[in-house]
């Protein structure tokens, strides 16, 4: 797919023009020669205002997310892979099997058509890897200076085949909390590429689709009480959201949370706490203590769970807080972050 030649005449239109979102011939050409070429053939009945889907189960999960990352390309992924995996992961966290995505582009006038082509191919590659289809889409172009190159929105539908709602309210006292790998890679990979923060790492984003690893747990009959993918706000925010949603006290052991050495070093230099740094391919799962060893074994046997481990448990108290046992054995509250983490002075 990397050698796929674009049937769209890029030499003729090296940059996105306002007319590419204007509803006329240029827009039609972009859709037909680039988008439908990559995402699937035009239906025999022709392009229409909406797609009709036959879903194989009565319970569906539905979610939406928008992607505005800068830079568009970063070590380990790009805005296209994020747009697919982000929505796939949100569906997976409800125990749903993701099937279909929509794809909305907001393009900035002047965006290089080559860049758009790279992103479109990367979306297809990520969709194939996750086993989902792009079934509908939309393109708008905004004037130069009114966007950041490209914004993407994806919505997704998945079918829910497992029993019991996988939601914070299902969390029980005594549940074990497992994570599928080390934290903070995505945030540090992005930060390392931004202007003004000139440090070097070989860290790549952990951006990945979590639907397969989650389905292994479900298929093995693990009684999942809750899951959450760790995105903005990192592990600390996800734990706080679940503590609040379940009205339960969560206890985490700081020493047990895996952090790659380079991520830990970058965080130490910048004054960031890796527990608050963003991830795009990590999740936590709450399971009954009796099932924790089996669930851990399943996670560790998957390519996206080789660093999986247990990081804490749900306590009997009903106060919605997260307590962190620090490296030296003292306890403190692990709070939600206010605003963004900002690199410190010294």
């Amino acid at each position, binding site marked *: 797919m990397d050698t796929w030649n674009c049937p769209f005449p890029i030499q003729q239109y090296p940059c996105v023009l306002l007319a590419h979102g204007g509803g006329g011939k240029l827009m039609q050409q972009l859709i037909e020669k680039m988008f439908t070429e990559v995402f699937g053939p035009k239906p025999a009945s022709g392009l229409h205002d909406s797609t009709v889907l036959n879903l194989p189960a009565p319970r569906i999960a539905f979610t939406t997310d928008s992607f505005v990352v800068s830079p568009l390309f970063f070590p380990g992924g790009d805005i296209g892979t994020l747009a697919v995996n982000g929505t796939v992961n949100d569906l997976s966290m409800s125990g749903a099997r993701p099937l279909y995505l929509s794809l909305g582009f907001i393009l900035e006038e002047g965006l290089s058509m080559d860049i758009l082509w790279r992103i479109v191919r990367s979306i297809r590659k990520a969709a194939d890897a996750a086993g989902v289809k792009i079934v509908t889409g939309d393109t708008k172009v905004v004037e130069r200076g009114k966007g950041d190159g490209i914004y993407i929105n994806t919505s997704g539908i998945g079918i829910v085949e497992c029993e019991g709602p996988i939601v914070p309210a299902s969390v029980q006292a005594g549940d074990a909390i497992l994570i599928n790998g080390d934290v903070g890679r995505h945030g540090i990979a992005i930060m390392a590429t931004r*202007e*003004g*923060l*000139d*440090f070097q790492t070989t860290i790549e984003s952990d951006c990945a689709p979590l639907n397969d690893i989650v389905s292994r747990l479900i298929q093995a009959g693990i009684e999942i009480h809750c899951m959450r993918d760790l995105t903005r706000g990192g592990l600390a925010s996800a734990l706080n959201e679940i503590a609040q949603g379940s009205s339960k006290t969560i206890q985490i052991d700081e*020493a047990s949370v895996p952090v790659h*050495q380079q991520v*830990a*070093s970058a965080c*130490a*230099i*910048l*004054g960031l706490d890796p527990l608050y740094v963003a991830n795009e391919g990590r999740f936590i799962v709450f399971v009954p203590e009796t099932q924790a060893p089996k669930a851990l074994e399943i996670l560790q046997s998957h390519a996206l769970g080789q660093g999986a481990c247990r990081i804490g448990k749900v306590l009997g108290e009903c106060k919605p807080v997260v307590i962190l046992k*620090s*490296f*030296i*054995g*003292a*306890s*403190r*509250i692990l*709070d939600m972050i*206010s*605003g963004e983490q*900002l*690199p*410190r*002075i*010294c």
Partner: protein
Amino acid sequence: MKYLDEYKDPKLAAQLSRQIYKITTKPWVIMEVCGGQTHAIVKFGIDTLLPDKIELVHGPGCPVCVTPLEMIDRALAIAARHDVIFCSFGDMLRVPGTGGDLLSVKAQGGDVRIVYSPLDALKIAQDNPKKEIVFFAVGFETTAPANAMAVYQARERGLHNFSLLVSHVLVPPAMEAILSSKNNRVQGFLAAGHVCTVMGYREYSPIAAKYKVPIVVTGFEPLDILQGIAMCVEQLEEGQYDVENQYARSVRAEGNVYAQDLITKVFCVTPRKWRGIGEIPQSGFSLTPQYRDYDAELKFNLGDIKTQESRDCLSGLILQGVKKPHECPAFAVTCTPEHPLGATMVSSEGACSAYYRYKR
């Protein structure tokens, strides 16, 4: 991680804690000078490993917290100009001035950028010759060499679109101000390890002798701080008041002489106003006359700035170790990290912010 994990070892921490319990017979008030130490104490729960007789009070060593309101307001005025790219360390961006903060200037169209080093700002100056690049040079002796280097190199390279908004402060005069205050409760100090890495610790000996207080140059990891406290308590119990160096893996008595040379080339010592404390003589740096072309205050004639501090904020007393954050009636009520009344609630090194995050 090498040089970090070893200093978080729970067994050694417990051993040091037992040692401190064993040697402590009387109540002692010890101040950790640096905000980074305050943060580590609260983050790792170091205070919970100490006997009740040891009280840690938090010092003024948070550069964000002590930058005076007038200086924040000057930064806001400069950053709002269309011809300026305003560069700053990240944690200055949320500090409230009289009418907003740098993040709100950015939201209103100002070009405000976070950089990790002033040399990154210099590169921005090189890449944007039609813009004026201003770097907010805030900090203690720790950040002074890098800021001095930026100005030095700007001059060497003939870059005239670069300047510093200087708000540099110095640790020893602040320690003296605290010790000579009639409210003072501090009996021993943990001095700031990174400041001493640059400046050495010889200038602390006269302070220790004059005020009869032990001063222990201390690092930032949990075991550093516990060991620093143990060394300080040992001196207090024995009635000694020497300067000792716990952070020997980084600090030498003479400091980093190359960095000091650069500082004296570019900066001279000057009186400075400290937010919440007031003016302290000879307590900061400003650019020498030779480098006045790089002084943003002179370059952008800002006129008089009228400031208004919040009446409910006790950050001045907190920075002097007289009050603890939770003794402030506004703490976590009208003053939160989302709506800070003072800078101590903003910076990751501010005592109020550390208490809000970890100790509520």
